[in-house]
């Protein structure tokens, strides 16, 4: 399990690399803002999870599960293609699902609050579908993946800042 922790740290570093590469590519917001949004989003998620009381952050299994559930992938505005950093996170998700044959996952697609509500419901589904297709390509049976969309109906962070938009354009993972 310690090896897992090392692996996750490595992935996190890679992920940050992916982020900065992406920043140049899309030129939207600065890295600090995105990082802050990510940290804020993770804190918010953790707080919600802790309130629900359904995980034990002290056990190693709990930590792995927590990492699976709490780390979202993010999308560029009005896009459903996977960003390089998202692919890395999905590879980590795939490893977790492979290592836990008993589980099935739900992928939730979400959008930021800009744009048409109805169109975003379909866009969120397309985002979830992109993530699901990548997991399937990595060897996860489609039967273990359910995709759902909440469009822009369930923002993680309220407000109309670039940070909030970034945090809300997400694929979120739930273990059934």
């Amino acid at each position, binding site marked *: 399990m310690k090896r897992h922790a090392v692996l996750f740290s490595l992935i996190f570093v890679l992920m940050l690399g992916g982020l900065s590469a992406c920043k140049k590519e899309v030129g939207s917001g600065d890295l600090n803002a995105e990082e802050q949004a990510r940290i804020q989003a993770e804190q918010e998620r953790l707080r919600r999870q802790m309130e629900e009381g359904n995980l034990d952050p002290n056990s190693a299994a709990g930590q792995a599960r927590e990492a699976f559930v709490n780390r979202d992938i993010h999308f560029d505005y009005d896009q459903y293609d996977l960003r390089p950093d998202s692919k890395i996170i999905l590879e980590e998700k795939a490893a977790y699902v492979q290592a836990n044959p008993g589980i099935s996952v739900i992928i939730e697609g979400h959008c930021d609050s800009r744009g048409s*509500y*109805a169109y975003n*419901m379909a866009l969120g*589904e397309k985002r979830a579908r992109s993530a699901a297709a990548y997991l399937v390509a990595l060897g996860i049976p489609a039967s273990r993946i359910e*995709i759902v969309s909440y469009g822009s109906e369930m923002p993680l962070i309220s407000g109309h800042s670039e940070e909030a938009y970034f945090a809300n354009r997400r694929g979120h993972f739930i273990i059934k």
Partner: protein
Amino acid sequence: MLKKFLLLILSLALCPPALSAAERPIIDIASPTIRKLPVALPAFAPQSEQTSSPALEQGRELLSQDLLFTGLFDIIDPASYLGTAEEEVNPRQWSRVGAELLITCRYQREGSVLTLECRLYDILEARQLVGKRYSGQEEDLPAMMHRFADEIMLAVTGERSVFSTLIAFVHSEGNNKNIWLMDFNGANPRPFTQKEGLTLYPAWDPAGSLLAYSQFVNRHPAVFVHSLAGGGGRMIINSSGMSITPAFRPGGQIAASLSYGNGPTNIFLSDLTGQIVKNLSNGLNIDVTPSFSPDGGQMAFVSDRGGAPQIYILDLNSGQTRRLTFGYNYCAAPDWSPKGDLIAFQARTENGFRIATVKPDGSGLQVLDTPGGEDPSFSPDGRLIAYSSRTTGAYQIYVVTASGQMIGQISNLSGDNSDPAWSPRGLGGK
């Protein structure tokens, strides 16, 4: 001259006077620049001193608000009037203060029964256009005023307006969203569905007896049909993925955007029991929010097949699809006017989303000068557009005329209030 005028008043109280007026509308509402008609609306007058009731000032206020809601009238300041509703009508008294139309209401009480006699006069032609008598209880006063306002519109434009209509919309409370109803002007907001979770995308059937919507069931939205008479919602389409944005097709069918399992989102046509009749779109793109032409022969919808969301029109007879919107990089939420002549939608501009209109052939695209603007819905007479905007923070519902004259904010509720759907006529106002 005056003698003839008085005779007309007496006789027209007996025969239905609106008939002749309807043949020749005073305002050509198709005209792009509509001059507002100056109207005199003096205080309602009691038939006798004994029945005088200050509460009737509310009636005048309601009628005044209804007229202003159409964007067609200016009400002349009562302080300038030379006459009253009690006196016999002297057209010169009213033309001297600039009135082209005069509205008088006289009332009478017998026990709890309130009787109103309301008249509309064409001052320039010195004749009565409408005369109506309404009897009811005091609480029927708003309904009486809305009915008479529609009669005024019938005489002036050739068609009744919105005063008997409702607006369905999405109201949020905590993590739940439900379908609510309110009167055309935002009065009497009340829940229509009361469910946990998300209930979205209200759509009226052409008769106004049913609302369709999507409700999330076990994480997946399904299409429901719900009678206004009650009985709760009936689930008719529950694809294994999403079933969203239902729209009634005139003639008794429903189109909705459906996905199956992990597959793409396309528009399908079903009968009213949810039996799929055929698919109206194919492919891996997003195709959502259908809206039909009044004859049901064409369907506007949003697709990202060209990269970004734009509005397309499918001709159901030929099967041909063409792109409708150009010049804006994000166009969505089309609503085809019940009059058939315009399609309203939301266009992203430099200043954010605005309501825009375009003719079905793609010409005459006009962006309205609205604060914000999403999810437009035409009134049944095609003159007004309800839409949602969050320029004040939370979403509220606003009304603008189809030519771009702002009428105002009509919802004033907590939470988000969005995605209005304007009903056909004949539902509201009791």
